[in-house]
């Protein structure tokens, strides 16, 4: 297990044993901004090295996959008894992606010496928003558009912290290239893994706090939060395979499809679908799926990618 995952486990443990460990909220905010911008910049530097037109199929596939995932999940969630709004809200979290799961998967693949398309951060940025929009549409279907403030929502989804920093980083990295980003590399590129480790300590504390909610929601939520990523990883892997990505690219796309958002999604869904139980989605995304993916899922998705290649 990678050192950053051990640090996540330490955070969960600290929470479970009720340690007084608490990272200042301002540090959480700083670390998340750092990670988003650093991932964006790194992807942008790679984008600057290749013709953008070649990436059009990947752009279209990411947008389509993100939008389609909630439409696949909602009928399954309804079938096992979740109501319409909670199914849609849960599905939106899975339609969007977890940036930290992506970061952990990237470091895992690097450690396993599996090369990955170097512009993969572009996929993360593209996959953030479509799933949220699909989830909101699914929650509002049949209700008319009267109660949804689309303008405010579009502002929050497209100009929210996640998309703004990822897309902004990608753009800046692509414009200034490797030479241009060299002066900030000692802050944004080199110490990335150490910062990721610190962020995972914080996420361990937050995920550990969800364990009570997971117990309250019972087997149904546990099943959803373990089965959904497994199914969605296959969707991601097949999409990547169709695009002709490398084995590492297939594993990373499978991981992205399997991951659930807990930065952009909870905030967007709270405003867009307030009648949904936000505790339910957060317990699933952060309390179960996130630890499942980083502990068990990522190695499985690499095996899936290797089996497909």
């Amino acid at each position, binding site marked *: 297990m990678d050192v950053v995952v051990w640090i996540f486990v330490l955070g969960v443990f600290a929470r479970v044993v009720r340690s007084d460990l608490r990272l200042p*909220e301002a540090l959480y905010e700083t670390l998340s901004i750092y990670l988003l911008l650093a991932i964006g910049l790194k992807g942008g530097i790679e984008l600057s090295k290749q013709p953008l037109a070649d990436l059009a199929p990947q752009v279209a596939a990411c947008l389509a996959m993100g939008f389609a995932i909630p439409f696949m999940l909602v009928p399954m969630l309804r079938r096992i008894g979740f109501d319409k709004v909670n199914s849609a809200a849960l599905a939106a979290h899975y339609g969007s992606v977890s940036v930290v799961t992506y970061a952990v998967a990237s470091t895992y693949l690097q450690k396993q010496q599996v090369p990955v398309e170097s512009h993969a951060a572009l996929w993360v940025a593209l996959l953030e928003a479509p799933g949220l929009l699909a989830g909101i549409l699914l929650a509002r279907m049949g209700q008319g558009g009267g109660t949804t403030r689309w303008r405010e929502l579009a502002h929050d989804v497209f100009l929210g912290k996640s998309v703004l920093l990822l897309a902004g980083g990608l753009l800046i990295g692509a414009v200034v290239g490797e030479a241009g980003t060299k002066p900030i590399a000692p802050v944004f590129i080199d110490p990335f893994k150490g910062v990721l480790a610190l962020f995972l300590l914080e996420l361990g504390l*937050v995920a550990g706090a969800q364990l009570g909610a997971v117990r309250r929601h019972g087997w149904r939520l546990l099943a959803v939060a373990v089965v959904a990523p497994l199914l969605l990883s296959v969707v991601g892997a097949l999409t990547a395979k169709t695009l002709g990505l490398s084995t590492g690219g297939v594993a990373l796309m499978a991981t992205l499809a399997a991951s659930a958002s*807990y930065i952009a999604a909870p*905030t967007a869904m709270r405003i867009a679908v307030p*009648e949904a139980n936000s505790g339910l989605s*957060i317990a699933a995304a952060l309390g179960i799926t996130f630890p499942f993916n980083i502990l068990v899922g990522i190695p499985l998705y690499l095996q899936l990618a290797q089996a497909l290649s």
Partner: protein
Amino acid sequence: MNLHSRKLLVVVAEAALEKRLITDLRREGAQGYTVHDVRGGSEHAVREGFWEADRTIELKVVCDEAVAQRLAAHVLAQYAPHFGVTLFLSDVAVFRPEKF
């Protein structure tokens, strides 16, 4: 110095509502507000403010009684059914009435 009576309306709510509450209070005629990040809990839930979805704000508005009543009625009707919201009202005295 002369003192003037006003009301202090305090709204403790999920941070996701901050932008909306500020728009609402301006529309209802309040001239200013103060926001703090806070944490706390009830018998239903604990909000520790660890991260985005867990953040809580305390919004303080000093205004006249009519504005406080309108704002409180709006918050209760619009947000209380689906969001964590606590409201309370108290009497305060201000030195410069034109500001409130």
